[in-house]
């Protein structure tokens, strides 16, 4: 029996191949976009984790010498005083035309490194003697190994996937030989467990500076904003894909009613039938899901290099441009596709189960009045209000997300009611009978199209919302870069003495030398970096303030007030008019708050005089230089030759800006690619809905045709109908998208990252989006319209003969 049932069910797909394809494509699209985003996120996170663990950069404080290198004697002295430190020697090493970061670590004293741990878990771990003694071994990411093996003068290379990109790890004894830096140490990592009673650093090695653990955690927080956007897109695409599945499964089930009735009349129990249909759905979900994974994999592979470049450039987060198949997102992808398919078809299955054995095969009856616009509309209002209430009652990121989810889903549910009301209003004013018919017909089609239109609404709103956020971020960031990077050249001297030398030499040669001195202070909200500035128009005219008292610069430069950054202001709830205690002797009035994007820590600015009193020993080796832009190159070359500065010690403003802009353009590539894809999916949803409706279209069109409208006219009306609905939806999506953008900028960003971005509006991109929407709607309606145009008159006449 089971076999017969399966054959009967399968025959449906044989006769409706396009439907089958639509269903599979729907599942594949939903799974594909979702898993592409998951793959990208997983890859990026794995890269951060690898980089953090590998060199333990995030977890350990470092000791450094101002000159850049530490002597072996200093290391041994520290060790013999009980300090548990591990020596690291780093340098760029050229291999062919590539430059890699060669990191030599004292493998004997360094805490377990993932690359080493993994190596020795292999079946035949290398003899430790080969790692620690000449010629040694190089551990390198797999892509570097062939290149390293081509170099006859290098030690043998071993591939390790536990290394960050472009880093070659080896023992310090090997590194000092390769880098030709015998006895040199770049930095000392302070290991976590220190013995009791060790002498303070100031006694053992006063020349070394202790640096707190680098802000790897904060990198994660920053990059999270990026991943958040991607995830939102992924989830949205998934939801939109499910609308397609819902529509197709609904149609397939409706068309199978006759078959199901026959099967049951022949004695197949409903339970058996339901289980087989369930198995069929799971099978389809697995096939579609696998297709989706494949799609997602290639999509992620195409997008990842750009994402990686963005993350690397924007946040300095190390991300590989290569994609790996990770079981994590493969399994969740398949799980999501099954769960999504079942969720999208559950209602149809439930109704099939409750169908009376002898009920007729009428489609209209199937459709019924299952969802009434008013009820869903009320549910929508409830959801939106729920989101607002949660946001008002609770603080934090989760409340922000609740607000966003409530408003998005609420608006989507409200859409049919709003559209229906608009159509009703128009119908009341229409005098032309054809228009009246078109409007009434649209009204009648609305229940069948509403899911697709909801999908469109969400896709458009997300487009507008995320697009507005990204563009606002870009505009603000660029403006802020312009304001903050005012000096044409930035210089870092080797130490304070050289700093003074450079300052003296520069002063007569340039428009202004602006010393940048800073010190790290403790504040209850975390570390606070205090900067000293001199009085210069550069600051007065340009510094980006988000809140300030009148005469703010006079107050700061002459009256001993302080400016703090927005992060600190929001974290400690300190605003102009309040005061902040820096230490026991210095409590300063806050004169203003400035925006400081991309920086996770608190910051303050005081006049250089005051800074000198608060931190008399802070070094003075960084300067901003104001100079005519055309003299920049010449001066940079002079400085480099005269003071033997590293190339990295002189930074041109133009280079920094160009780099930042390039990064942002890359970000846009990713965002716009996802934008177009979600829109495409929504268009596809409309197409499937229209195809679903097509089966019942003829009985509705035939009387109008009989009254004299040509098929050509009717098919044009068909196109117009789809475009009008899409247009109305797009109009409604605009305010929703702007609301979404506002939530992202003013709520989510503030909660997650501590700064609020001003919202900029981009009407030209709305117009563009509107056009795309109309194109998508027209394309979606083109197939049904074309079919209508080609319907033989005999079919239309038959409608009357069949009495519907």
């Amino acid at each position, binding site marked *: 029996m089971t076999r017969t049932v399966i054959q009967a069910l399968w025959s449906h797909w044989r006769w409706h191949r396009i439907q089958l394809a639509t269903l599979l494509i729907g599942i594949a699209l939903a799974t594909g976009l979702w898993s592409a985003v998951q793959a990208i996120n997983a890859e990026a996170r794995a890269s951060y984790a690898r980089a953090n663990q590998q060199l333990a950069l995030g977890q350990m404080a470092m000791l450094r010498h101002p000159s850049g290198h530490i002597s*072996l004697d200093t*290391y*041994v002295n520290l*060790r*013999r*005083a*009980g300090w*548990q430190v591990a020596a690291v020697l780093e340098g760029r090493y050229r291999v062919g035309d590539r430059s890699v970061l060669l990191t030599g670590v*004292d*493998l*004997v*004293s*360094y805490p*377990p*490194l993932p690359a*080493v*741990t993994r190596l*020795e878990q292999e079946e035949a*771990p290398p*003899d*430790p*003697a080969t*790692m*620690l*003694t*000449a010629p040694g071994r190089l551990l390198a990411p797999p892509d570097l190994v062939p290149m390293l093996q081509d170099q006859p003068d290098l030690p043998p290379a071993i591939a390790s996937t536990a290394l960050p990109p472009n880093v070659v790890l080896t*023992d*310090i*004894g090997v590194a*000092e*030989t390769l880098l030709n830096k*015998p*006895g040199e140490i770049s930095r000392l990592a302070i290991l976590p*467990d*220190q*013995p*009791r*009673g*060790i002498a303070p650093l100031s006694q053992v090695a006063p020349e070394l500076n202790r640096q707190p653990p680098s802000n790897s955690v904060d990198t994660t927080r920053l990059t999270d904003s990026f991943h958040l956007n991607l995830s939102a897109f992924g989830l949205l695409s998934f939801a939109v894909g499910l609308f397609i599945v819902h529509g197709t499964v609904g149609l397939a089930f409706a068309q199978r009613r006759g078959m199901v009735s026959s099967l049951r009349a022949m004695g197949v129990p409903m339970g058996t039938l339901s289980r087989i249909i369930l198995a069929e759905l799971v099978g389809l979900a697995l096939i579609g899901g696998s297709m989706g994974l494949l799609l997602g994999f290639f999509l992620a592979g195409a997008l990842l290099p750009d994402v990686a470049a963005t993350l690397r450039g924007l946040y300095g987060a190390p991300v590989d441009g290569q994609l790996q198949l990770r079981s994590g997102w493969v399994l969740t992808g398949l799980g999501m596709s099954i769960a999504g398919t079942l969720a999208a078809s559950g209602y149809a299955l439930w109704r099939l189960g409750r169908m009376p054995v002898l009920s007729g095969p009428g489609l209209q009856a199937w459709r019924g009045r299952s969802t009434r616009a008013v009820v869903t509309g009320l549910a929508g209002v409830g959801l939106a209000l729920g989101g607002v209430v949660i946001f008002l009652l609770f603080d934090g990121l989760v409340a922000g997300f609740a607000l966003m989810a409530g408003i998005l889903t609420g608006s989507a549910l409200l859409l049919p009611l709003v559209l229906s009301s608009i159509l009703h209003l128009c119908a009341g004013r229409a005098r032309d009978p054809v228009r009246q018919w078109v409007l009434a017909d649209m009204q009648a089609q609305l229940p069948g199209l509403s899911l697709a239109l909801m999908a469109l609404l969400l896709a458009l709103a997300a487009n507008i919302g995320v697009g507005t956020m990204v563009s606002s971020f870009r505009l603000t960031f660029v403006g802020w870069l312009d304001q903050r990077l005012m000096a044409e050249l930035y210089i870092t001297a080797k130490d304070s003495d050289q700093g003074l030398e450079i300052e003296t030499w520069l002063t007569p040669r340039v428009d202004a030398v602006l010393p940048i001195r800073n010190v790290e202070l403790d504040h209850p909200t975390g570390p606070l970096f205090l900067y000293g500035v001199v009085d210069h128009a550069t600051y007065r005219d340009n510094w980006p303030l988000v809140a300030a008292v009148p005469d703010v610069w006079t107050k700061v430069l002459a009256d001993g007030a302080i400016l703090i950054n927005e992060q600190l202001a929001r974290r400690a709830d300190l605003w102009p008019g309040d005061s902040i205690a820096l230490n026991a002797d210095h409590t300063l009035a806050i004169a203003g708050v400035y925006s400081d994007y991309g920086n996770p820590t608190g910051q303050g600015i005081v006049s250089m005089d005051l800074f000198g009193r608060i931190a008399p020993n802070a070094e003075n080796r960084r300067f901003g230089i104001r100079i005519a832009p055309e003299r920049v190159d010449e001066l940079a070359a002079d400085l480099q030759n005269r003071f033997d500065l590293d190339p990295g010690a002189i930074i041109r403003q133009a280079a920094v800006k160009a780099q930042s802009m390039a990064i942002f353009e890359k970000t846009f590539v990713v965002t716009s690619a996802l934008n177009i894809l979600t829109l495409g999916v929504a268009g596809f949803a409309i197409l499937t809905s229209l195809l679903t409706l097509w089966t019942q279209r003829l009985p509705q069109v035939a009387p109008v045709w009989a009254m004299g409208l040509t098929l050509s006219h009717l098919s044009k009306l068909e196109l117009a109908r789809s475009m009008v609905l899409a247009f109305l939806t797009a109009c409604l999506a605009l305010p929703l998208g702007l609301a979404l953008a506002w939530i992202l900028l003013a709520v989510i960003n503030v909660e997650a990252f501590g700064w609020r971005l001003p919202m900029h509006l981009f009407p030209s991109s709305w117009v563009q989006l509107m056009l795309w929407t109309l194109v998508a709607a027209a394309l979606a309606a083109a197939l049904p319209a074309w079919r209508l145009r080609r319907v033989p008159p005999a079919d239309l006449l038959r409608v009357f003969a069949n009495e519907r």
Partner: protein
Amino acid sequence: MNAKLLVCALFWPLAAMAQGFAGLGGSADGFDVPQPEYQFEFPADHGPHPSYRIEWWYLTANLTGEDGRDYGIQWTLFRSALKPFETASWQSPQIWMGHAALTTPERHFFAERLSRGGIGQAGVTADPFEAWIDEWRMAGPTLQTLTLTANGADFGYDLNLSASGPLVFHGENGFSVKSADGQASYYYSQPGYAVQGTLHLPDGDVAVTGSGWLDREWSSQPLAADQSGWDWFSLSFEDGDKLMAFRLRGGRGDYTSATWINADGSSRSLPDGSVIFTPLETSRVADRDVPTDWRVSIPGEDLDIRVRAQNSQAWMGTRFQYWEGPVTVSGSHNGRGYLEMTGY
């Protein structure tokens, strides 16, 4: 550096066993192998022997605090050579590992240090005698008079040691055979230190006095292929006599060896099979059962004693893990001592 790599490096015989290739001949890799009839030269032999694979300076002490409680301390410096030479740079193939422990009746503190040779972070000089790794030191002018210091995160000690008796040579004049196949090491001890000083505990300092025992041993192949671990006793009796006895547990049966040390410092070796070791009771330590109550008897010497751990939880949770702690002796002889057990 990671545990397994280091265990391989430091305890190559065990590692070699685990990897299934037995009988790694020391000489095949260029390492020297102990030979009988060796003429020790002091103070030079108190220093390191880089051409041998493995070597240690191993000091344990049974102490009594001013509070009347029993304490035990361990201070060990291991040397393990990846290659049989030394060079003054990071390229040195000599790896040093320090273990320090302090055992109270209730708690067991331990710490571990690692370093390579060649750069001055760890090493041993014979004259004047100094053994060190990081800030841990065991330094004399000579081996007879030592100051000893070590620190962990939550414990430490500063002790002064002075020995009156002679060095004791185990086996045949310091050539100590470890298996029926003839694997051997050079092995001598200074078992008679008087100790006084201060222990640093989380609750405060404790002044202590007691007795200490230093083992010196080096070799390139101390164990046979089938030997999985050892039980090692160093005991001081109330009548002034002392006993060093060990059992190497092997697939082909145990191999035992012992040295009876008279109160005047004279000694005699007891051959394989003279000592009978019977574990009486085990304790659950670090997820394994370790015998912490022993019967040790030497019928030929009229010795029949019970040896009990003062603190059964004296587990060294270091990269290479083992049990090491102070014991109390009762029965035909009374006294104190130290027990080391590996391979459980």
